[in-house]
């Protein structure tokens, strides 16, 4: 990615009320997040590409459309918070943070290396990181804590938390769901990256979590059920979810694990495995084509 392009992407945060004209740019950003995810996992020869590819559109919409954050002041008290509960999807997350300007793109090269700020799973020491994930099922309760603090202090910030569908097998997710509704945390938006696949197979075969929207609704959430790769829909739903009053919201984003790379799509083998040289080459070629077609 050349320097000018990065600058251009960084500037998206400064334009206003251009939501729909931005959608195609957001798609390009998402594609760039996908490419960077593969570049860094390929370089490290470890990491989790599958979930990074499925979350890319959501991350692009959050960081370059929705979140009120300031990369120059990562600990700004009134910032919107983003909690990546599925911490293994750090490659996509780090790519988004670097593109947003929290740290240099060059630092992505240190991913998973000794002495790096870009640990295998996120740590609070990394600029822009609000939650140290890695152990599944812990992000929603943590986000609830931030949301409760915001209510106590009359802050206007919102808390967005991204969870996985495999992760939803953890009981703690549902303890937290119950608590978020009980405490009427309408400053909380959960996003479920429902990419259908987990470490050892299809989620519906390992432990079915369906019907996800109904479950969350019955726990007291306003639930939105969308195509998690339809950028226009993501952007529109983030706005709607942010305006829900009196209860928390969830966006069930129906996604495809490994999205954008033919041999990774819905393939559990790429949950936690980096591409080899040949796979990497093919993947980058495929992603380059998608970018130019500017599809949904």
């Amino acid at each position, binding site marked *: 990615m050349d320097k000018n392009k990065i600058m251009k992407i960084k500037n998206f945060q400064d334009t206003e009320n251009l939501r729909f004209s931005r959608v195609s740019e957001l798609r390009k950003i998402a594609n760039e997040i996908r490419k960077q995810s593969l570049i860094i996992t390929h370089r490290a020869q470890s990491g989790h590409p599958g979930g990074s590819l499925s979350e890319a559109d959501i991350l692009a919409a959050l960081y370059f459309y929705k979140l009120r954050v300031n990369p120059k002041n990562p600990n700004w008290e009134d910032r919107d918070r983003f909690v990546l509960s599925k911490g293994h999807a750090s490659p996509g997350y780090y790519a988004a943070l670097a593109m947003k300007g929290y740290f240099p793109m060059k630092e992505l090269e240190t991913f998973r290396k000794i002495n790096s700020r870009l640990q295998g799973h996120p740590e609070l020491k990394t600029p822009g990181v609000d939650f140290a994930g890695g152990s599944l099922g812990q992000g929603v309760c943590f986000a609830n804590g931030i949301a409760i603090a915001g209510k106590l202090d009359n802050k206007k910030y919102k808390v967005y938390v991204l969870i996985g569908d495999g992760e939803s097998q953890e009981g703690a997710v549902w303890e937290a769901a*119950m608590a978020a509704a*009980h405490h009427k945390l309408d400053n909380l938006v959960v996003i479920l990256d429902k990419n259908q696949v987990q470490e050892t197979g299809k989620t519906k075969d390992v432990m079915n979590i369906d019907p996800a929207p109904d479950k969350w609704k019955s726990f007291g959430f306003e639930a939105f059920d969308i195509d998690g790769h339809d950028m226009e829909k993501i952007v529109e739903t983030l706005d709607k979810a942010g305006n829900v009053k009196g209860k928390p919201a969830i966006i069930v984003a129906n996604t495809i694990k490994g999205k954008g790379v033919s041999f990774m799509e819905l393939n559990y083998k790429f949950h936690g495995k980096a591409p080899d040289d040949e796979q990497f080459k093919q993947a980058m070629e495929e992603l380059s084509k998608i970018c130019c077609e500017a599809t949904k």
Partner: protein
Amino acid sequence: MEPKATREGYGDALAEVAKKYKNVVALDADLNDSTRSDYIKKVDPSRFISMGIAEQDMIGTAAGLAASGKIPFASTFAIFSERAFEFVRNIVSRNNLNVKIAGSHAGIFTGEDGKSAQAIEDISIYRTLPNMIVLQPCDYIETKKAVHALAAYHGPSFMRLLRNPLPIIHDDNYKFEIGKGEILRNGKDAVIFATGTMVHESLAAAEILKKDNIAIYVVNVHTIKPIDEKLIMSLAKKTNCVITAEDHNIIGGLGSAVAEVLGENYPCIMKRIGMEDQYGESGKPAELYEKYGLSAKHVAEKVKEIIKRKKK
């Protein structure tokens, strides 16, 4: 003062620190009547956060509050806090977040509720977590002082609280300092490092031993981590005979903490008094202390035995 439970000190002090610090909040997993964390409601009901019977969720939420500038005190029974152990490990201690965990009803001192409620491994497991400090005050006043000290301290902590009343051996002038042991009684033949209820049993044992012309130091170890290495070394060198006493498994708790210090620096004769790798049962605390070898009488006998070993 009449005997009072340390959990009473917790509740009373929580209300005090809530007045002193605006950002203090309390969370509980439906045991706030027992842990006395309810008392914060007298100051500001909005700063009591009801978590339901969901300890993992409580710890994670407390961590989120701490990351947002609050000083959360999260309480439940010590045993049930252990259910959230991996949350404590991965969210609280891994990130060095300012969460104060209070675990009440610890040890067989809990009594009639029996094994399921009597935590005898809590000190051990929390002690293994980097960043975490571990406290067990021995009376009502010391508990209040400890809560004030914790509110002023930044970092994760576990404080062990007790269900039943205990004599009050401190007064309001007592200066509590995290990490510093307190010599309650001077001696020469041996030293007992005791924590919680066993401070009182050890003081009573010292009286029994006095009749046999045996003089022992009794030290109140209210902070098990960081352990007061200096004090342990100094009294070990003076007596060459060290006993530890705790209502906790002898594996991993105060006994182990003291043994680690001595083993590396000053190996000497040592005896750990505590639950000998077994669970308790239902009964009155005094009956249980008699049966499981924790009463003052037992402590005195064990001290005598080890002093004999020292003379050989």
